[in-house]
């Protein structure tokens, strides 16, 4: 994550009469500059990552030993639910939108985003959405306690009164994502510099373009299902209430129709980031650029036909189970194959291992590990033993923490010198990497074992045979949690005082963003760059 200092020094840029950033708070409130908005998204995402992380530590602290020590089961459920919601909608997605805001205009030679005012608005409604969500923790009856997947009827008839705040929070987050997606599509399609044809778009831009289409197709479905919940709770309809002719399984189908494309929304931008970083440090062009672009597009389309592999045990006719098993296994091919592209890029390259490359390599290894456990989960009969156990928790944490989070860390270490003009401290970066690497594996690898041994998900207390691996996971969680402070200290310390960054920053770097001075002037590409 990037922490850009509040009063960035007045930047000399070519036409100096041009007004620089306004002074004081007004600058951040009224900014329509894609760099400021990108920084705000990234700082917001870092704060949410910390809040979500603290909730994770509460969960792991309770699960350190059998028996209820710290929190009472009702509050424990609120922590698991809020941890999920904040990490998914507050840490990962805004971080990717922040990176897109910063890098897409720089990489396609555009002066700014297509709709700057909407860009400002889609950021500024996010803090209020999460204020609404987090404030429900302090309301009588407590915050949302029905899991981040908020299955009905637990989230409708049996929910605490604060569920309406949860619903409005989700509405606003959805609106912010849709506006962000529209902005990115308009920028990429309409504002490329002359000569920057669609064929030459960097892969980060391609993955974000496809992710934006996914967002526009899927966030309204989330808004729809949450509106149906609102109508069930307050206006006496019964979409999900069996008494009035509704069906709780209908909720699960609609939620996961949104849910599976959503997990692709959280990983495709990571594919883009890794495809930018590995070629730079391997000093070799990305292997099979065309295959990557076509595969990412097909993954986006195919992600709409596999949703029910989250529901193998809900009771489906045999035809349904076999169909979704086959479909899920088939789309694992174009997704998994992308790992080979990265390895082929490294093969016979000339590699150096600065911090961004370390995070990228850890992404390739550990994300693939998560992909393997995902493939095991796709086998429907075996899923009857895995479903809703800690094996599933281990799976999605392996694809999300060493997956999405490590790719965001790699992007921060990789592009921060361009944003701030100062290079982060390399030893602190490596310390942060190795602590995070050990922490992530020590936390989530034992979860495979307790999951296979039979420990269900979302329980505040467990039987004695799961005790040892759980205590190991809790120790790992605290290591991983506190190692993020090393990152924050590194950023805060070196944003201004760090060693000056050259324009190219990394020796193997290609791309339009590196032709701009570091730190990137407040207004770049006012006159479109010439692209050979």
């Amino acid at each position: 994550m990037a922490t850009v200092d509040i009063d960035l020094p007045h930047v000399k840029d070519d036409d100096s009469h041009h007004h620089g950033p306004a002074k004081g708070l007004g600058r951040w409130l009224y900014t329509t500059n894609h760099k400021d908005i990108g920084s705000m998204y990234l700082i917001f995402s870092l704060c949410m990552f910390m809040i979500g992380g603290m909730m994770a530590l509460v969960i792991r602290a309770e699960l350190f030993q059998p028996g209820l020590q710290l929190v009472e089961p009702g509050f424990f459920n609120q922590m698991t639910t809020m941890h999920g919601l904040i990490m998914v909608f507050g840490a990962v997605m805004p971080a990717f939108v922040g990176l897109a805001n910063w890098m897409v205009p720089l990489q396609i030679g555009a002066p700014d985003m297509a709709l700057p005012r909407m860009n400002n608005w889609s950021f500024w409604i996010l803090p209020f959405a999460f204020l609404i969500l987090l404030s429900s923790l302090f309301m009588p009856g407590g915050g949302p306690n029905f899991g981040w997947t908020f299955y009905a009827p637990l989230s409708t008839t049996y929910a605490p009164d604060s569920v309406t705040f949860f619903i409005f929070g989700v509405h606003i987050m959805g609106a912010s994502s849709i506006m962000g997606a529209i902005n990115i599509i308009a920028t990429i399609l309409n504002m490329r510099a002359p000569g920057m044809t669609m064929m030459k778009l960097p892969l980060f831009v391609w993955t974000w373009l496809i992710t934006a289409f996914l967002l526009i197709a899927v966030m309204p479905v989330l808004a729809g299902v949450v509106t149906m919940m609102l109508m069930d709770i307050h206006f006496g309809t019964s979409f999900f209430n069996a008494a009035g002719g509704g069906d709780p399984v209908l909720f699960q189908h609609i939620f996961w129709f949104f849910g599976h494309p959503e997990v692709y929304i959280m990983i495709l931008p990571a594919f883009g980031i890794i495809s930018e970083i590995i070629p730079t440090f391997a000093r070799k062009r990305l292997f099979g650029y065309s295959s990557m672009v076509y595969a990412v597009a097909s993954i986006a389309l195919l992600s709409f036909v596999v949703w029910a592999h989250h529901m193998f045990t809900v009771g489906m006719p045999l035809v349904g189970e076999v169909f979704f098993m086959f479909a899920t296994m088939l789309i694992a091919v174009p997704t998994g194959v992308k790992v080979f592209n990265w390895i082929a890029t490294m093969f016979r390259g000339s590699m150096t291992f600065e911090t961004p490359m370390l995070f990228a390599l850890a992404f390739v290894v550990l994300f693939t590990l998560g992909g393997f456990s995902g493939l095991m989960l796709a086998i429907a009969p075996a899923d009857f033993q895995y479903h809703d156990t800690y094996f599933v928790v281990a799976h999605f944490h392996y694809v999300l923490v060493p997956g999405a989070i490590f790719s965001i860390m790699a992007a921060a270490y990789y592009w921060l010198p361009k944003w701030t003009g100062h290079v982060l401290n390399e030893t602190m970066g490596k310390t942060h990497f190795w602590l995070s690497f050990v922490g992530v594996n020590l936390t989530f690898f034992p979860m495979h074992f307790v999951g296979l041994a039979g420990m269900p998900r979302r329980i505040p207390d467990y039987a004695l045979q799961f005790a040892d691996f759980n205590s190991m996971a809790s120790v790992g969680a605290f290591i991983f949690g506190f190692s993020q402070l090393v990152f924050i200290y590194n950023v805060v310390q070196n944003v201004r005082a760090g060693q000056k960054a050259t324009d190219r920053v990394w020796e193997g770097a290609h791309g339009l963003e590196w032709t701009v001075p570091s730190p990137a002037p407040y207004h770049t590409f006012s006159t479109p760059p010439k692209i050979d």
Partner: protein
Amino acid sequence: MTKAMVLALSLFVLPAKADWQVNMTQGVTELSREIFDLHMLIFWICVVIGVAVFGVMFYSIFKHRKSKGAVAEHWHENTTVEVIWTVVPFVILISMAVPATATLINMYDTSEADVDIQVTGYQWKWRYQYLNEDIDFFSNLSTPRDEINNVQVKNSNYLLEVDKPLVIPVNKKVRFLITSNDVIHSWWVPNFAVKKDAIPGFVNESWVRVEEPGIYRGQCTELCGKEHGFMPIVVEVKAEADYARWVADQKAMKLISAGAASQNYAVADLIAKGEGVYNAACAGCHQVNGQGMPGAFPAITASAIATGPIQKHLDIVLNGKAGTAMQAFKQQLSAVDLAAVVTFQRNGLGNSVGDSIQPSAVQQ
């Protein structure tokens, strides 16, 4: 590689001692062994692919480093290689899909069952109704609250023990009709490889044919509220003769408890018995000390109902209160237990109303 990973990898094949169990249970039914074999087959395929892929990667990381003078080459596309590394995983997937489909088809076997049991999920307990016989009982967590709150030492079956386990015959096809009373639960016994969601308003079907008598434990696996982690499943598989004797005992006990309801009990006995019933059925929400939880569950101590007219107190225990978490306990507790717990609530937990109620009065 941290100690945990080295240890885990070495133990991964053999299911190790209980507290270091790293792998899925093989289970006691033909289906659970089939699923275990499927799990291990796909696990080993993933390990082989992983070793191959990461081998190439680490070789490249080690060999093609700038510090060792490697100079980057300029090829960046080779369609034939890409086609190969797409078709090979495709073929591997087919080899996985065939046995998986076969197992899945076996699981959807709709042949005639010998025993039909309706499993109903309640908020935070299971109810078992034998459709062929007239047996119907609730199965509550029996781990004492003191063990959960770390006052007492935890016994070996901590959180996996119930007061009345489900009893089924061995080598017989037992069919479960799984449904729910309030929210979605999920009925899972790892040793049977049976897991089915219990959905309110609808019935799901599952079956098992157990090959070895014994006691098998499982847990609710779908988030269902506050006590989701505290509603275990215990199934006792008995030999044919023992099962028949158990069914006869159940029927006999039903008569005895019917008779017991007509006797009169001393108030002191009612209070003593009532405290046990209170801790099992009511302490989950109203807490052991009767203070309840402000904003969520009302207190019993000095409550208007518990100190008011006894008939209203009995009515709310019998029929519950619509729209709140207070359930109807009429079907869940016997007449004797109901009389005992009402009497206890009126004369214990800081209340001393002084009146009591007999089981026979409860039945009107």
